[in-house]
């Protein structure tokens, strides 16, 4: 496959390149990047008024397979990723069985390979069975191909175990991703604690349930020198803790989700279970603090926390429905509309949070555009306004709190190693 991406505005945060260039792709790699490339007989794709960026990376998704195939499979999850403009996703280990054994990591990699769409980077469990009692065989998992460890969904309650995980992970220089939650403080909680939890009669989760664990993990990162990555930070206090940690030179990075940047706890009104997520949608002061932290660069990475659920699981009483949002197919437009269009974040800065940001955290040689490198490319139409139709998602999970809303700025082309896997919202079929 050989073609030229023509007339697009190329933006590469890593090399700080912003220029109208043509990109010649051949044998899966970027052969050349220059103005006005012409090769006789080579197909041309016109990208006038579009932005050509390095392939977007989502370092926090749940693909559910093995064990949760009713909610998503690696194939359907990869289709959703392709549709959403992602060329690579990092898959959380909380499957059944969980990725605390190399066999599960191998399975995820093999099925992703077979799907032939976006790249899937497995994340291994921190502890055996994600029970938080004994650390898993990180070395074996690393050899099998994991890019990070996490017990996502479960916090590591035992401080000693977390300390050992942060220490041991230093052998492989991989980040320990913390799902920060004090389970006693959040027990029974269904939404953010505040005005709306009182009005709706739903048990609240105070921001401190998140912040207490983040504070502990930051201190443990200081103690151990391990690399800590805070998953889905959602509170103003988390931002303050992050500032503290960075000022101390502690190795801490953090991510935020589109839903925490766009939506407040008021959305829970009406008991729409698509708004039920952990950490919960917060009140406006937290949302504002989070947006500011993203703009100021304190949060260097945006992730979906894609958590698809079968309809019958979400279509029940609020208290019974599981936590999670199907986010892969709306992340880019939500962030573009919220941060670039409305909050004046530069397109370059936003792109960095989906490319070089996560690539650096996971130490993957991706998230950049350079001659000779594999052609992983995401093209954005910054002017395209489109309505979200969750029923048409490629993901099995239609649980979207933004169903029916219109956003500006959509991915229109996803390319992995030169192969076009999505064009104009249409996914090029993966292999069964």
């Amino acid at each position, binding site marked *: 496959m050989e073609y030229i991406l023509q007339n697009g505005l190329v933006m590469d945060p890593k090399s700080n390149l912003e220029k109208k260039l043509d990109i010649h792709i051949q044998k899966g790699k970027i052969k050349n990047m220059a103005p006005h490339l012409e090769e006789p007989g080579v197909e041309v794709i016109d990208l006038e008024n579009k932005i050509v960026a390095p392939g977007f990376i989502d370092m926090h998704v749940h693909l559910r397979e093995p064990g949760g195939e009713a909610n998503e499979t690696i194939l359907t999850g990869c289709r959703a990723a392709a549709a959403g403009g992602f060329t690579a996703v990092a898959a959380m280990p909380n499957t059944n069985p969980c990725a605390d054994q190399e066999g599960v990591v191998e399975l995820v990699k093999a099925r992703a390979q077979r799907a032939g769409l976006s790249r899937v980077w497995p994340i291994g469990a921190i502890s055996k069975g994600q029970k938080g009692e004994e650390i898993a065989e990180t070395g074996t998992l690393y050899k099998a191909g994991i890019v990070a460890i996490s017990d996502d969904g479960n916090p590591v309650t035992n401080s000693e175990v977390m300390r050992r995980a942060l220490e041991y992970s230093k052998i492989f220089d991989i980040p320990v991703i913390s799902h920060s939650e004090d389970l006693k403080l959040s027990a029974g909680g269904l939404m953010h604690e505040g*005005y709306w939890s009182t*009005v709706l009669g739903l048990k*609240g989760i105070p921001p401190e349930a998140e912040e207490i664990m983040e504070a502990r993990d930051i201190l443990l990162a200081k103690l151990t020198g391990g690399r800590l990555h805070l998953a889905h930070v959602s509170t103003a206090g988390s931002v303050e803790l992050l500032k503290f940690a960075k000022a101390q030179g502690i190795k801490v990075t953090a991510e935020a989700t589109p839903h925490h940047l766009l939506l407040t706890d008021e959305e829970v009104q009406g008991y729409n279970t698509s708004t039920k997520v952990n950490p919960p949608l917060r009140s406006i002061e937290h949302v504002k603090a989070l947006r500011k932290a993203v703009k100021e660069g304190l949060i260097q990475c945006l992730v979906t926390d894609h958590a698809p659920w079968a309809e019958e699981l979400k279509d*029940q*009483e609020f*208290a019974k429905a599981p936590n999670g949002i199907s986010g892969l197919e709306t992340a880019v437009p939500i962030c573009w509309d919220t941060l670039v269009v409305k909050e004046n974040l530069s397109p370059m800065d936003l792109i960095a949070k989906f490319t070089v940001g996560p690539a650096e955290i996971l130490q993957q040689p991706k998230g950049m555009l350079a001659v000779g490198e594999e052609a992983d490319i995401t093209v954005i139409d910054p002017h395209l306004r489109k309505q979200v139709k969750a029923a048409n998602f490629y993901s099995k999970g239609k649980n979207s709190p933004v169903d029916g809303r219109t956003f500006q700025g959509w991915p229109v082309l996803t390319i992995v190693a030169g192969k076009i896997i999505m064009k104009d919202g249409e996914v090029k079929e993966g292999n069964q």
Partner: protein
Amino acid sequence: MGIKEKDLITMGQLSKEQIEEILSTAKEMKNIIKRDIKKIPTLRGKVVVNLFYEPSTRTRTSFELAGKYMSADVINISTSASSVVKGESLRDTGYTLQSMGADIVVIRHSMAGAPQLLGNYLNARVINAGDGFHEHPTQALLDMLTIKEQLGSFAGLKVAIIGDILHSRVARSNLSGLTKMGADVWLCGPPTLVPPGIETLGGKVTYNMDEALQDADVVMMLRIQLERQKAGLFPSLKEYSQLYGLTQEKIKLASKNSLILHPGPMNRGIEIAGNTADSSQSHIREQVTNGVAIRMALLYLMLGQQKGE
């Protein structure tokens, strides 16, 4: 006027005028309950289904009698003896009842939001008979009827709601309804049982029972559940009773002709002393009668008026 919205879920959805209409309709209905032959044909051919996911004596019986006094066919479903134990979803249970011809489904559920969810699925009308810690609008209406009968109006009344505010749907519905009608509502309980942000809903919060009782016109005591102590929200029933229990001594702080209310079931000797519950100021039994009247009024306004409009 009637109830315009299909479902009755919260007190917040009712206007002042609608509340007045429900209360005056209930007053007329009360005359029927006091008759020797308690039957009028108004709802003949209408089907009322009581769908109760939680145990209940007075609310369920009250809806049942309200329907029967007006000649509706009333079916009771308690979920412990139904397809729910076989894992049937709320949605499917609702559709099943609707397919059999239910005109109105009265639902009690331990989870907030369940009545609204059911209402979204069904064409049949839905009445919230209490959902989790959210709302219990028919209880608030019967409390308001009791207050109105005794004190004439709501404007300027000091109403003290005392006890476990956090877990109380009764408190939320009363706060919403009473403040709308111009009453001054005080909420009192230990800080561990007062939800965050409740002041923004219009109530005044105090942790001091004496302050809540001072010159109160209405004292509404809430039931305390033993399981709240087990969850560590207060240290013991004895201490709770000392700090927040209503006694003959404490009621003296309230205005001379104050009313004592309790939604039931009561824990005698814990949140309310036995002799206080039985005193002349107590209107707890009248509340029960008014509960039937309010539910008759609602069934009438939601089912009986449809054709004429």
